[in-house]
């Protein structure tokens, strides 16, 4: 035995070979999450956009600070008849012809940083507060979609049979409506009077209405792929092993199947926020989403488009914020998907 040729392994005997061996071992020892994180870290573009999203969220969270210490106003306060001193000249915030001033940047110590709207309200302040509403709706709606889709998808995929048929038919029916049209229909129906869900009453002008609508509309788009994944997971050996140990359906669903859905759920969640923010803007633009005077990026664009000929900044500014937010989420979500499972076909279809 000792005379067995060592030619093949001698290459690995040197220090360089050891490193290689050690490196291979390190990769083997890592769990899927650590591996994914490592792959994600190598994707510089995705990381950069992820950071951009965090910065956007932080600046929107800091809205009260900017409003109080820099702009000295609130998102609803009108400055219709106020004047400010620009370059030593007194200027009306809203001109006599009804045209508001454009971006001043730091000329007035940060007041009207991005100009004013036709009511003389500070755009920068509204942009930040509006961003809070838009992002809050996006995140809350994505959360609602995710939770309900996972519950429905797991039940349908695990039990199959009649519960699968029932859930799938309901989802198919929801699927038959174009997203915007279904959102608009619910928006119009719920605008007056709001909603009564068991003990919870929601007023028609509350932000919970768009959250409910958007959260509902996207369920079929996520529940379907989740169900498909559960269908294949339930046939895996580890589920069989759990069943052999005497685990009941609830325990199998929650401690065996749901943890294995985590990467899909994470990717979907990111992309859902992006789509929810876009849909909020679309619904608000049509007058079926956030109700004034609550600012949101959608309502701001809606206000701006009417006056695009005289004050284009009213449209451009909130739109750019919206595009940056959605783009950063999309790029980051794409990166997360590639990192966690390069072969995954998880994507949100419209």
């Amino acid at each position, binding site marked *: 035995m000792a005379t067995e040729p060592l030619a093949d392994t001698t290459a690995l005997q040197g220090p360089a070979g050891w490193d290689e061996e050690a490196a291979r071992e390190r990769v083997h020892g890592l769990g899927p999450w650590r591996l994914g994180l490592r792959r994600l870290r190598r994707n510089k*573009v995705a990381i950069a956009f992820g950071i951009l999203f965090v910065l956007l969220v932080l600046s929107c969270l800091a809205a009260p600070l900017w409003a109080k210490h820099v702009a000295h106003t609130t998102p609803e306060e009108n400055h219709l008849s106020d004047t400010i001193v620009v370059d030593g000249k007194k200027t009306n915030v809203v001109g006599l012809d009804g045209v508001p001033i454009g971006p001043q940047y730091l000329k007035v110590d940060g007041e009207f940083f991005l100009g004013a709207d036709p009511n003389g309200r500070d755009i920068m302040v509204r942009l930040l507060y509006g961003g809070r509403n838009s992002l809050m709706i996006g995140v809350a709606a994505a959360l609602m979609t995710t939770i309900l889709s996972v519950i429905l998808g797991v039940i349908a995929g695990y039990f199959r049979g009649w519960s699968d048929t029932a859930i799938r*038919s309901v989802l*198919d*029916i*929801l699927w*038959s*409506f*174009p*997203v*915007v*049209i*279904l959102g*608009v*229909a*619910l*928006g*119009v*129906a*719920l*605008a*007056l*009077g*709001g*909603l*009564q869900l068991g003990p919870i*009453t*929601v007023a*028609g002008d509350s932000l919970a209405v768009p959250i409910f609508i958007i959260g509902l509309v996207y369920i079929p788009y996520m529940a379907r792929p989740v169900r498909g994944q559960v269908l294949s997971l339930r046939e895996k050996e580890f589920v069989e092993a759990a069943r052999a140990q005497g685990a009941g359906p609830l325990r199998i669903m929650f401690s065996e199947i749901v943890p294995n859905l985590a990467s899909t759920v994470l990717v979907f969640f990111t992309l859902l926020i*992006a789509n929810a923010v*876009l849909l909020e*803007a*679309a619904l608000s*633009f*049509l*007058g*079926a989403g956030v109700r004034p005077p609550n600012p949101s990026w959608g309502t701001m*664009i809606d206000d701006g*488009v009417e006056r*695009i*000929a005289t004050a*284009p900044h009213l*449209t*451009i500014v909130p*739109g750019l914020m*919206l*595009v940056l937010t*959605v*783009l950063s989420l*999309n*790029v980051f979500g*794409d990166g997360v998907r590639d990192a966690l499972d390069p072969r995954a*076909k998880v*994507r949100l*279809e*419209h």
Partner: protein
Amino acid sequence: MGRFVVRRLLQMILVLFAVSVLTFLIFNVIPNSDPAVRMSGRQASESTIQAIRKEWGFNDPLWQQYLTTMKKVITGDLKSEFTQLPVGEEIKKGLPRTLSLAVGAALLWMFVAVCFGLYSAVKAGRFADRFLTIIALVGISMPVFWIGALMNYYLGFKLGWFPNGGYVEFTEDPIDWFYHLILPWTALAILFIGFYSRVLRSNVLDTINEDYVRTARAKGLGERQILIRHVLRNSMIPIITLWGLDFGAVLGGGAILTETVFDLQGVGQYAAEAIGQLDVPPVLAVTMFSAFFIVLLNAIVDILYAYLDPRIRLQ
């Protein structure tokens, strides 16, 4: 094949029924307020509300209310409570405009997406691919009404290259019709180009490694012929399905935002104007109409597929 068609059509009828019930529930049952008050618009007198309650039978049992509503929708008896114009007529008036928008945009986005997707897949991993991927992501991240409004303002109003919104009938002046629709087509197509080119890219990358592609290469076919005849043809199948469904959605009012921004006065804009007034009947009709359209197109696509691919019939 005959049995498949019959089964698929029966299923379609069932879904149509379910869709109409859901629409009815959304408008008349789910909201926490008196449907007669909501139906009658913002400032309604007590007598109007009473009249509407009687007309729609809101005191009857639910199944009877459903029948009353459906009868109104189907017979075209539905009228806007705000303008008092019949809803069916208005939708019919808007349909050719929406159709013009949908057909042009669908052709445009399919053509550009195929070019982008194919090029991106051929150059996978290189600069051109990454650049196109970013462009596609920007495309799906832009709200169509925002980019539409900016195009309208800069290209239409400021530079004067294109008309500033509006629509001209095809029968009146085909060239002017085309000219007026260039911007709306582009704005609507951007979102779908981003989406389709990404799907096509990954499909092409999957197909390119298939055995029959290797065979084609082995027998000496040119790269271009392999790409177009063997790879592209097989990668297009899932996209064509999507195309049918998205076309149905756009036709059924899914282009509501584009139509509004460019003032095309189609079905979508009709709904959008009704939303502004919280005018329920037009929104109800457009919602039901668009879902019907999608269900119908879905069935047609399925039947076409079964015709093309016999395996589907047996499922």
